[in-house]
């Protein structure tokens, strides 16, 4: 300092070393004025002290306001004491000015997302994160599913290591980082920033695109450091972000969870070709690209006929065209696999929440758990082809009502359970129509023989048939050697006669304990049907008319008896009542899936 120059070595407000300029280049504090005549009065000295104190308070208040909106939090480090309302308001205005041009964290994440989306395959992005805790360098890439992969390297450097002159006390250090640096050796600080940062912070020559983030924007040391880093990396983009990071040191702390999806997600569904029954895989959109943490999606699916217990919810990336999905599922990039307990209803809803890219949580229905099996194993269990109906179906269930109560109940229960299952499988009105027939015995006595012994419920809603079935009461056996099954076949013929013309498949289930009456008296001397019904002719008509008939007999008859009636009528299946199940019957009737057939994936609703 030349003789007679009374300028201080450092600005009394901001601590910056003074230069030839009459005012501080940083805080504009007047360092030198023209000499004035007269003594320095007490008043003049007091005025000066007041101005200096005010200037210092304003300088420090700006830093405190950058750290916290609470004027009291960092007041102890504000020289000249706590600012008054006006001064704090001014400090907040200064903060606004200091952060001008900075973006919100959400905008910054979107920008990073865009940068990552634009990366070529295998390329990465270097993010230098200058934050309140230190400086971290993150290598960011995405996996093939679009999920961000963030690797910190080298390890993040804390400010206390980078700039040892900073306070070890957290709040004071934050105050200093934000600009409360008047008490520090500014020259030493500048030297550190200039020399230490470039050394050992950035990995040398990784060639990746670099984004330097400075958060919170406006913090003097952070801004200086970020600029230094950006300056040292050609092509680096500086991104200033308003406010303290929501997590950790900066954007990357929340990027993994909060980054918008780069690729949409979908749930894998099975579709069944109506004509051939071929099973193909498809998808139903679950989340769109850009969806972020907390996004919800609700999808409606249909339980595959025959599927019970649980199905697999496979979440895959959604931007794959269906043509790329191979039958073995190999074309699918599966994000996660879940096991959903299947409700009894055929149509069910799932609600999914996006917890993070790659992390989906199903909140509805309850009980969805991660699936332990790998995707290839899931796909391998999916049949290539299933039994399907060509269209809507008419089903007539005919049961013998004569016999012991237990036996009649068993027959009725089988049909009841079948109808219950089918009502679930065929929720669309009119797709399945069910009719009922129930017979008691012909009575071979004068005046009785030609009485109708078959009760009938017309084709209609399965639930109504189920209700009607309960009213089909049993009766005792009046003629032991045969039951009026031929009458029921005849009525079934009437009921199903128009099905084909209406584009409906026709099915008949016969549940009985005894064979039909013959048309004519035979060697076995079983009474012929009083109405002359010919089960053999009716059976041929049913077969010719493509009416699938499944017969269920109380006890499986011997081979001869089977060949005579049961096998002839029950061409689509002959079962013993104790050994069969509604599902097996449904499968043989062609109104349900084959036994053991399980798709295991939801169908589109």
């Amino acid at each position, binding site marked *: 300092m030349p003789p007679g120059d009374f300028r201080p070595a450092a600005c009394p407000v901001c601590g910056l070393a003074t230069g030839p300029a009459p005012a501080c280049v940083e805080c504009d504090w007047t360092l030198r004025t023209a000499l004035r005549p007269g003594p320095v009065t007490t008043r003049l000295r007091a005025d000066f002290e007041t101005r200096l104190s005010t200037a210092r308070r304003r300088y420090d208040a700006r830093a405190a306001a950058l750290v916290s909106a609470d004027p009291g939090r960092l007041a102890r480090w504000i020289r000249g004491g706590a600012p008054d309302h006006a001064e704090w308001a001014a400090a907040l205005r200064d903060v606004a000015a200091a952060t001008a041009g900075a973006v919100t964290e959400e905008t910054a994440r979107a920008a990073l997302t865009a940068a990552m989306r634009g990366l070529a395959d295998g390329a990465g992005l270097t993010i230098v994160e200058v934050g309140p805790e230190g400086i971290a360098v993150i290598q960011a890439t995405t996996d093939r599913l679009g999920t961000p992969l963030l690797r910190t390297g080298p390890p993040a450097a804390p400010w206390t290591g980078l700039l040892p002159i900073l306070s070890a006390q957290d709040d004071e250090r934050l105050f200093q980082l934000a600009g409360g640096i008047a008490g520090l050796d500014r020259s030493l600080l500048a030297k550190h920033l200039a020399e230490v940062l470039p050394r050992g912070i950035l990995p040398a020559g990784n060639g990746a695109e670099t984004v330097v983030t400075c958060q919170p924007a406006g913090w003097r040391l952070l801004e200086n450091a970020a600029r230094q880093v950006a300056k040292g990396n050609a092509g680096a983009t500086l991104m200033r972000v308003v406010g303290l990071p929501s997590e950790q040191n900066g954007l990357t702390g929340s990027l993994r969870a909060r980054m918008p999806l780069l690729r949409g997600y979908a749930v894998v569904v099975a579709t069944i070709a109506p004509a051939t029954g071929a099973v193909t895989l498809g998808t139903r959109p679950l989340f769109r690209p850009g969806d972020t943490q907390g996004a919800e999606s609700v999808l409606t699916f249909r339980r595959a006929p025959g599927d019970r217990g649980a199905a697999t919810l496979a979440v895959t990336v959604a931007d794959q065209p269906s043509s790329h999905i191979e039958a073995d599922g190999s074309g699918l990039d599966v994000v996660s696999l879940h096991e959903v307990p299947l409700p009894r209803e055929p149509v069910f809803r799932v609600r999914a929440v996006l917890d993070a890219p790659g992390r989906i949580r199903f909140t509805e229905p309850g009980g969805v758990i991660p699936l332990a099996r790998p995707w290839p194993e899931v796909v391998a269990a999916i049949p290539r082809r299933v039994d399907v109906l060509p269209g809507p179906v008419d089903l007539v269930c005919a049961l013998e009502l004569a016999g012991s109560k237990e036996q009649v109940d068993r027959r009725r229960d089988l049909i009841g359970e079948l109808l219950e299952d089918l009502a679930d499988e065929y929720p669309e009105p009119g797709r399945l129509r069910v009719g009922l027939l129930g017979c008691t015995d012909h009575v071979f*006595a004068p005046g009785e023989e030609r009485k109708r012994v078959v009760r009938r419920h017309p084709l209609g809603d399965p639930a109504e048939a189920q209700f009607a079935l309960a009213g089909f009461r049993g009766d005792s056996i009046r003629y032991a050697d045969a039951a009026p099954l031929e009458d029921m076949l005849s009525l079934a013929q009437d009921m199903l006669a128009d099905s084909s013309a209406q584009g409906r498949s026709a099915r008949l289930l016969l549940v009985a304990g005894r064979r039909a009456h013959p048309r004519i008296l035979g060697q076995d001397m079983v009474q012929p049907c009083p109405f002359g019904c010919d089960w053999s002719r009716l059976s041929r008509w049913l077969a010719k008319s493509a009416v699938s008939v499944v017969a269920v007999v109380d006890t499986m008859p011997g081979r001869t008896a089977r060949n005579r009636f049961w096998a002839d009528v029950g061409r689509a299946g002959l079962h013993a009542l104790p050994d069969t199940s509604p599902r097996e019957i449904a499968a043989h009737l062609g109104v349900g899936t084959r036994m053991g057939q399980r798709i295991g994936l939801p169908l589109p609703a």
Partner: protein
Amino acid sequence: MTMTNGRPQGLRSLGRIGLWGAPSCGKTTYLAALNVAVNQAAAQDLMIFGVDDLSTDFLVENTTRLTRDRQFPPATNSGNQYSWVLRMETQVPERRRFGRQAMTTVPLEMNLDLMDEPGRVFNDIPNEPSTGGGGRDLGFDDDDDADADGDAGSVAAEESVMDRLASCDGLLLLFDPTKEWTDGDAFNYFQGTLLRIAQRRMAGQATPGGRLPHYVAVCATKFDHPDVYRRAKNGGYRSFAMDDPSLFPRVPDELAEKFFVDLVRQSERGNADLVASALRKYFEPDRVRFFITSAIGFYKSRKSARFQEADFMNIVRQQGRDFQIRGAIHPINVVEPLVWLGQSLAAAR
């Protein structure tokens, strides 16, 4: 001959007719159906009535059982003698002046005696237990020999029955072909009785070489049984009487013997084919005639005008394996053998 009201007086006690047959051959059912058959017969003057309360009650009870209850008569448990009078009109030759003969219609009455003994009495070896009727399981039986361990088969009863049979003028021999197919014992029952009758009528006969004097109506029963009917149909024996509005099948009398022989040949167990030849040997051939009969006849629905080939069985098996008569009974050739016997006896007087 005395005249009553300008007509020849009825020929009472023209003769006695005895009923003969193996167990379960349908004797009781035949008698029970006789009342119905008499009432259904075209001849207006045909009637039957008991000679005593026992016989009348038997007729009433069994007719009721057969028609109202649709049940077969119960088994014959003890020996009873029943007797009815069968009244009819028949034509007999009447000697006129100048030695001329002309046929005239006269009322005819004859006694029909049923020695309703258990069929075992007719066995060739007395007191040997009879076998069960094969047709029983199919419900075509009536008089079971339920008293196999009783006293009815005693020697005294047998002697009494044989004496009465031998003393009859006509015999109604009932033969169940279905039982023969299963048991094959018809000849056993037949020959023992035949020989005992022969012993009683032919021993000490002045003229050697003569035959038994009885008129014999041989009735093959259970024509309504599907197996019997089918054999008649398939063998070409079946015909339909054009005057029968119901067109129930029949086997014409002229084919009856041949059909009878065919039927008994079906049996692989017995020697029933000897029955026909024995009859020809022991009785005058022109005094033996065959009939194919059915006590309950074929089923005909009230809705249908006539016999239905597809549905003719007139019994129905009930739960518990009991059989019941299905509909109205239409006896076939039940009264005709008796009419023939009566006419034959009248003509012989």
